[in-house]
């Protein structure tokens, strides 16, 4: 009933647009001639209000009663409309839709009007006033304050997330258990930073996969694992350990055992090397001697071995005792590879690493399962330890009390300034000095300083970013965030850490808000390697959800027997190196989709079906396979959007809609049953067949017609990112139609379609980045700011630096709305 008029109406819409454009310049807002329809009104009347009206209330969007004249009065509704217009998501398929030109022209008209209104009355939003540091930020702050790297995962619990990021102020709660952890962390850090000669000797344990929680590790250790290991080695563990004081330390090695507690691989001699900062400090041999080989009979039928047997505790003797100077150091324990013969044909493993054969046969190769570093013994506090040098700006003469207090005051004032990220008040300093003095009376200068450090680390001024409205401001007004708070916003955004001295000084001097200064600081910060590490590991991993690679559980027994943790680590490493290079070279954001450059090692290259890449180290590679280019060809992305036994095109489609196309789908209806995996006649179904229901059922189709084709076009990539051409016995059909009518078939076509809408992609990135940067979910009133960022970035081909700079200058980042 609507279709027949569409040609005429399209003409009406363009006529109204033309008319309106001429009136826009001459007529002030609020006095458009009553007779003319705005383009928005024409559009919704034709295509939208059949469903979206007061009576039906479809999706709670009533477009018959919105202000189509002064659109700013119904900004929230119109912003929703804009999203649907730009992504072509509405009207749903099967109903009459406008042509592409109309979609874009009406969207532009609406955007212009809303942007103008937003400029006249800025709404920068209001992130939480007390924004707790998440545990990554806490650890980085400690690193920057004291030069100490702490194991934040061991010291502090995981943070909650909201809107996809763990930088969200609302999600970062404070509760008794957390405060307990802060208390013990503060005591430990203070002791490490100051150096405590009475620090009791304790052991710290390191395992092969730092980021893996408690699952068994399927890490093959037959090759050199990474650049940190010496050439000619295989497997092992690398640990960054903080040695708090000068002294002697013990490094112990624990070996892998079968389920019955027998150490594997002791029939042959193995040489284990221990290195400290690259220098060999121990070479230990184990195995191959009669005390191990003479016991074969005991091992034969897999019985428990007597507790005292060397086969079950032979690694007790594997330790070296080393004098070490205080500081952060790298400890490596690895096995010397006896020869460099490569088995031809088969991959590194002849049998799957998770299988019983591999794990439980005692004569399989020796593997190091953990590294323990214990000490100190004979501790001496070195005045030159890196953290002491940073903290102790002065050293008072012994027992000169007034010198001591003056020095303590100086130390604690500087510490407070850096830790609280502002000029400390008199109150702040006096509080700390009192702590110093009380403890000093019963101890010495160092223990007094330790007490001061503890107090700093428990202070809300350290643990939280505090943003309070200026006194006396009118409710609901937008104001510029003061320089000192802006400095914190900047440093936590770009470095996930506290401001450095230069940024802090600039802010305290009140210069940071000046445009030239701000720009210069942003560029300086982006040029610092810390920015790339922080953004890659915190922003990108959460935005793209690739951190979930650590939680993947691909079906090992049937579908993916060759998946192991080496591959898992490779997925992560490829993403890290790829993204790091993109940022370092300040590429265009769009390059993420199209780049033919990546970083591979032999195992990952083979996984991608490429030959000619040898060795376990990562190197830059130019991809020649057109299907593999960019983000959509990365195994990390493809695997976190799949199930453990099969691909999940709907999940991939949703991922694309949310993260690439800025058009997130609404929530599914309740009680959706799972898909049938076999058809009625028992034949296994391809994933495409399983998803048929999505298309035939109209309730499902309204959303799935958008999600499924996107995901199905990637069907050639299986659940762990390998290329395939067959699924359930039939060739893969990777075809689909996107909502704007574009037909796609396979990843290359999909990528071209996405690049054709690259502005949508940049919009999606800006949206996610702003959410991450200001720590609150975005709302309709942020849309003009996002459009501003995209426009500014467009002028520089959407380079990362320009996009980030535009974001920093945008209203939501620079300003804040006062409480109403």
């Amino acid at each position, binding site marked *: 009933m609507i279709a027949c008029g569409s040609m005429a109406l399209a003409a009406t819409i363009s006529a109204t647009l033309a008319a309106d454009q001429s009136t826009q310049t001459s007529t002030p807002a609020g006095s458009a001639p009553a007779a003319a329809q705005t383009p928005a009104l024409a559009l919704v009347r034709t295509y939208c209000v059949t469903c979206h009206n007061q009576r039906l209330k479809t999706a709670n969007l009533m477009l018959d009663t919105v202000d189509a004249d002064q659109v700013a009065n119904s900004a929230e509704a119109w912003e929703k409309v804009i999203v649907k217009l730009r992504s072509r998501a509405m009207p749903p398929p099967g109903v009459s839709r406008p042509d592409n030109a109309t979609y874009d022209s009406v969207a532009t008209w609406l955007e212009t009007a809303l942007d103008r209104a937003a400029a006249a009355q800025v709404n920068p939003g209001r992130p939480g006033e007390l924004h707790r540091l998440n545990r990554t930020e806490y650890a980085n702050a400690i690193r920057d304050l004291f030069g100490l790297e702490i194991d934040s995962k061991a010291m502090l619990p995981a943070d909650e997330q909201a809107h996809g990021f763990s930088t969200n102020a609302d999600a970062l*709660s404070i509760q*008794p258990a957390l405060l307990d952890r802060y208390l013990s962390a503060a005591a430990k850090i203070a002791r490490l930073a100051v150096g405590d000669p009475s620090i009791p000797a304790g052991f710290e344990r390191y395992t092969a996969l730092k980021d893996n929680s408690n699952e*068994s590790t399927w890490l093959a250790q037959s090759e050199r694992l990474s650049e940190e290991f010496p050439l000619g080695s295989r497997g092992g563990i690398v640990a960054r350990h903080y040695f708090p004081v000068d002294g002697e330390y013990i490094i112990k090695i624990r070996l892998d055992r079968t389920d019955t*507690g027998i150490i594997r691989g002791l029939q042959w001699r193995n040489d284990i090397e221990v290195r400290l900062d690259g220098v060999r400090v121990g070479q230990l041999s184990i195995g191959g001697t009669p005390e191990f080989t003479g016991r074969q009979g005991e091992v034969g039928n897999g019985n428990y071995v007597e507790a005292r047997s060397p086969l079950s505790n032979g690694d007790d003797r594997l330790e070296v005792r080393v004098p070490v100077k205080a500081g952060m150091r790298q400890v490596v324990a690895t096995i010397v590879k006896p020869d460099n013969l490569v088995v031809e044909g088969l991959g590194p493993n002849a049998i799957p690493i998770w299988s019983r054969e591999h794990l439980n046969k005692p004569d399989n190769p020796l593997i190091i399962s953990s590294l*323990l570093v214990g000490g100190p013994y004979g501790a001496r506090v070195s005045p030159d330890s890196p953290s002491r040098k940073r903290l102790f700006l002065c050293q008072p003469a012994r027992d000169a009390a007034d010198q001591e207090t003056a020095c303590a005051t100086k130390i604690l004032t500087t510490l407070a300034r850096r830790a609280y990220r502002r000029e400390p008040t008199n109150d702040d300093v006096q509080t700390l000095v009192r702590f110093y003095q009380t403890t000093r009376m019963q101890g010495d200068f160092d223990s007094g300083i330790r007490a001061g450090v503890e*107090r700093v680390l428990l202070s809300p001024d350290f643990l939280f970013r505090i943003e309070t409205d200026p006194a006396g401001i009118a409710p609901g007004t937008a104001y510029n965030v003061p320089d000192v708070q802006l400095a914190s916003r900047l440093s936590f955004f770009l470095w996930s850490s506290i401001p450095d001295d230069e940024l802090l000084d600039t802010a305290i001097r009140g210069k940071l808000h000046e445009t030239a200064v701000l720009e210069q600081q942003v560029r300086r910060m982006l040029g610092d390697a810390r920015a790339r590490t922080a953004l890659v590991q915190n922003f990108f*991993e*959460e935005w793209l959800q690739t951190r*979930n690679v650590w939680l993947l559980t691909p079906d090992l027994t049937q579908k993916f027997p060759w998946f192991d943790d080496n591959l898992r680590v490779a997925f992560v490493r490829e993403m890290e190196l790829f993204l790091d290079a993109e940022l370092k070279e300040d590429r265009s954001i769009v390059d993420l989709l199209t780049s033919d450059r990546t970083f591979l090692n032999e195992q990952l290259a083979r996984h991608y079906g490429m030959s000619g890449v040898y060795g376990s180290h990562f190197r830059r590679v130019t991809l020649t396979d057109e299907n593999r280019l960019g983000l959509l060809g990365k195994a990390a992305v493809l695997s976190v959007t799949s199930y453990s036994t099969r691909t999940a095109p709907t999940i991939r489609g949703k991922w694309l809609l949310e993260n690439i196309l800025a058009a997130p789908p609404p929530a599914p209806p309740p*009680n959706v049953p799972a898909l049938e995996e076999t058809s009625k006649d028992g034949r296994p179904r391809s994933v495409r067949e399983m998803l048929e229901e999505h298309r035939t059922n109209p309730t499902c189709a309204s959303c799935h017609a958008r999600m499924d084709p996107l995901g199905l076009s990637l069907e050639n990539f299986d659940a762990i990112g390998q290329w395939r051409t067959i699924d359930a016995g039939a060739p893969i059909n990777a075809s689909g139609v996107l909502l704007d009518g574009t037909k796609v078939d396979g990843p290359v076509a999909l990528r071209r379609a996405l690049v054709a809408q690259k502005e949508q992609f940049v919009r999606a990135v800006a949206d996610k980045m702003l959410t991450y940067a200001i720590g609150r979910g975005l709302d309709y009133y942020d849309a003009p700011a996002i459009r501003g960022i995209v426009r500014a970035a467009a002028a520089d081909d959407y380079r990362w630096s320009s996009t980030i700079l535009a974001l920093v200058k945008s209203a939501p980042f620079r300003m804040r709305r006062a409480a109403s």
Partner: protein
Amino acid sequence: MIATRKAISRRMILRGMGATVALPLLDAMIPALTAQGKTPAKGVRRLGVVYHPNGVIYDKWLPKGAGRNFELSPTLVGLEPFKDQLIVVTGLFMDVAEALGDGGGDHSRASGGYLSGVHVKKSDSVVGGGISMDQIAAKTLERETQLSSLQLQMDDNSLVGACDVGYSCAYSSTISWLTPTLPLMTENNPRVVFERLFGATDSTDPNVRAARLRQDRSILDSVMDRVKQLQRQLGAADNARVNDYLTSLRDVERRIQKTEEQSAKEVPDVARPAGIPESFDEHARLLYDLQLLAYQADVTRVITFMYGREQSPRPYPQIGVPEPHHSLTHHQNDPAKMEKCAKIQQYHLKLFADYLEKLRNTPDGDGSLLDHMIILYGGGISNSDRHTHGPLPTIVVGGGGGALKGGRHLVYPEHTPLTNLQLTLLDVLGVPTDKLGDSTGQFQELSEVGA
């Protein structure tokens, strides 16, 4: 695993040399606390909650028969040795976990409201639940103990991205809520749990430990002043974050004060765990052992424990189930998949039964720990495939200090609120409460003898 317990001197224990010793924490023998007189003379009642996610195969759960004459089902058969202290409760529902217009999110609503009987707010940032019954109990029971309560779990919380669409991950990763907006985080690392229970000073010297407590208390006092100053600065608006901060400060101060008062209490003679063990089996047993220790040393009387968060994808290859838990539970009535799901449930119950055995063997006051325990075991989802919220698989175990009469299968009319049971348990604990979420009353039957 071979448990090679060498004789470990106390000094070595507290320096963490336990890193090299095989687990489990406790062998069949329970370490006796050296001064028997330190435990309460008459056993005090304790609360435990064990939660399992992703629903059950209800046919395998439901016992045959009712009242005193009932036969344990295939899933529950491992609890046979404890039948006389076991009450199976059937017919309870969590109607508040239904969609009620909010669409999908059954998992989040199931765990989010399990102990509060509240229909949780659909939000992925600002959460809204209700105070959970374990926290209501803790408010009273904490008067005698250092730790108000403990929240433990097997999974960690590092999943990124939304959990249930539209719902914050907080809903599915804990069942304990201190306030309607403060879900309590769970801990899965045994070393961290140990340190929370017994301190992290690494020193045996009582003077050093006492000095640490004094220092902590004075730091917190000073921080409290600053937070109150902030509260004034932030103005009249009720600031949830500041309130949480003050609540937390007071709770931790209370803990320190209690610890100072009870400073004569000794640390038990066990090795400090090095971290998270490699196998689920070891990990679960270790966390159970720590719960027992916590009860025995009376460090806390309220503990909740989750086998995993709702939607947990954990596979169980050690019992022949390599598929991820959650997807397996959407079995669509495939018998092979249902069999595997039931296996997981039996496995969970086996670990639980081993824990009960140890509780029974631990002397406490005039009986055993189990005699004085009130343990609620269950979950917020019934049929795992359909996400129904009733009849919920629910059992109550323990003597309840004489107030619970076990050995019965109580069947209530369908849609009886789960909160009625929880309200009754609060009463048994000595924390009478008028209402909990959607409760409509209490049960008399738990304490009465007879059918």
